[in-house]
């Protein structure tokens, strides 16, 4: 995957580049908004990581410009501004996801991969399939090895998200944001409880567990 990092904090950009490169991604860097815009216009990136506050051109302007020019490359905003309003501004400008600094590295990687994946499977699907697990999005049913699994609405949403990001780590914060649409961290890990219930339903009684816990990161659904 080719990733453009537009970040004026060189140390943070270094760390990001190293981490993403280790994950097998090719990174290019730009240290200010204008350079970032020029690099993004050259194209060929799967994901853009854009800091909101930068010299010469802020991230929001950069992304707005790109979107106006018809560039639909997924954008992950990084920002120290974490208020709801700031988030809304970022997403309205055309950002696809918003990560508040400071962030866990696993969180960044998980979100970047989720964004890239979303682009690959951009079209409207009616059936999701991961290994022997099948989800009918219209009939709202889930089957594993032909056996129907009964899920609560929220469990269905949770599994849908995991299936759409099968093979990738997703963090608890991502789940809370994307499935529950909350942007705060509960003190207790409520998400773990929901995952373990889901796990009980889709893995119990089958030979091979699909829903994995990724240490220090979150969860992953494997085929």
């Amino acid at each position: 995957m080719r990733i453009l990092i537009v970040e004026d904090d060189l140390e943070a950009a270094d760390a990001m580049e190293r981490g993403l490169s280790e994950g097998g991604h090719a990174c290019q860097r730009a240290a200010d908004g204008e350079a970032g815009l020029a690099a993004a216009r050259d194209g060929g990136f799967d994901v853009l990581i854009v800091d909101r506050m930068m010299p010469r051109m802020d991230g929001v302007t950069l992304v707005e410009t790109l979107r106006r020019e018809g560039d639909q490359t997924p954008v992950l905003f990084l920002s120290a501004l974490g208020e709801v309003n700031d988030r809304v501004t970022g997403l309205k400008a055309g950002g696809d996801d918003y990560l508040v600094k400071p962030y866990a590295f696993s969180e960044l990687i998980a979100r970047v991969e989720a964004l890239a994946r979303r682009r690959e499977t951009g079209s409207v699907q009616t059936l999701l399939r991961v290994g022997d697990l099948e989800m009918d999005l219209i009939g709202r049913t889930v089957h594993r090895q032909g056996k129907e699994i009964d899920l609560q609405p929220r469990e269905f949403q949770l599994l849908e998200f995991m299936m759409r990001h099968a093979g990738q780590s997703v963090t608890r914060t991502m789940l809370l944001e994307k499935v529950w649409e909350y942007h705060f961290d509960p003190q207790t890990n409520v998400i773990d409880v929901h995952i373990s219930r889901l796990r009980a339903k889709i893995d119990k009684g089958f030979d091979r567990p699909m829903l994995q816990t990724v240490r220090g990161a979150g969860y992953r659904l494997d085929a």
Partner: protein
Amino acid sequence: MRLPRIFRTTPFRLTLLFLALFAAAAFAFLAYIYVATAGEATRRTDQEITREMRSLAAAYDRAGLDALNQSLIERAASERPFLYLLMTPSGARISGSIAASPVEDFTGPPAWTSFSVTEAGAQGRSVKRPARGLQERMRGGEILFVGADVGEDEAYVLKVVRALWGAGALVVVLGLSGGVLVSRNVSRSMAGLVAVVEAVRNGDLGARARVRGARDEFDELAAGLNEMLDRLERSMAGHRHAGDAIAHDLRSPLTRLRARLEAALLDVEAGKSDPTEALAQAVNDTDGVLKTFGAVLAIARLQAAGAAPSQAPFDPAGLARDIAELYEPLCEDKGVEFRAELSPDLTVRGNREFLAQALANILDNAVKYTPAGGAIMLRVRRRSSGEVEFSVTDTGPGVPQADRARVVERFVRLENSRNEPGAGLGLSLVAAVAEAHDGRLDLDEGPGKVGEMGPGLRVALILPRAA
């Protein structure tokens, strides 16, 4: 050189401007009076002289030089105030009441002249009096001069001029002192305000202007200034408080983290432990610090902002349902019974995200402190006052009455809960959210002591009636 303060004030400058305009008007007025009075006197004298000259010239034309001479003699003997001089064509005196003509050029056309006559005054002193006259050549070549003593006129004009000067001086003095008075008055009114601004600039945010109760624009300005300073002071206090709180709330966890890292470093150096584990622990600790930081920042921002941003009306039962759904499995896993009673058809106005977080924090606490076998009840209802109340009642150990106010403060955790995870900021954030919505947080006893359970805690987040 600097002018005294009073001369630099705006009212005084305005006064000077008005004074200048006033003086110009007064000058025009006085000039008119001068022309109308002094000018008129001179004109009348000139007319009389001209008439006398005409009548004498007519006598000469009618009856010749002798008749003229005769008339001059007769007139000089009368009480008429005119001065006469009849001269030959070459300028030699023939007769008249003055010795020599004040007009030197005998050949020119008729000419007016001003001169002075010497008169024997009282006590033998000679007095010079101003006079004015006209000299004309008669048809036969003789020269006739007719003049008049204008001493009375001049004296009158002089009086008028003196009066005018006096009036002008009075205008300036009155205007100037009026200006000084007005500007002193205004300056005194301004001085209070200026002093307040000065004090604030020097860092005394507590300074306030005096409102004199005159209900004029100075009072308005003073009241406005005071209100502005009140707000500024509140906001500054909020920021200062937030800064102190952040420093306090973060220093201790960071100190702990540092100590743990140091200990781990020593252990690793001594070969006693695996660095991976120590690093993983450090990352975990850092996450804890960041979580605390996030909570502190959220509280500080809410407190500094005064009101929660982006408030909109929404259904509180819907919010409670969502949060309940998030926490219900947690209760079930822990063996705690969870129930919810949510009144439908209510509307509150607020920031849904903040209120969701507040409710989540309350439930978080309840789940944390309620032992297995206990129960948690989430309720949304309208109070008789019209306020909307979110409440969570648990059957945990509760909080003694004396400690209830304290647990809401930042970072306070009661002795018996030291081992539980959590930054201790949960209820502080709830309180900040409540305040940011003009609401409040109430802590009360739960359902009471039942066997091992209780007495429990009832936490209520009360929002004002939606307008």
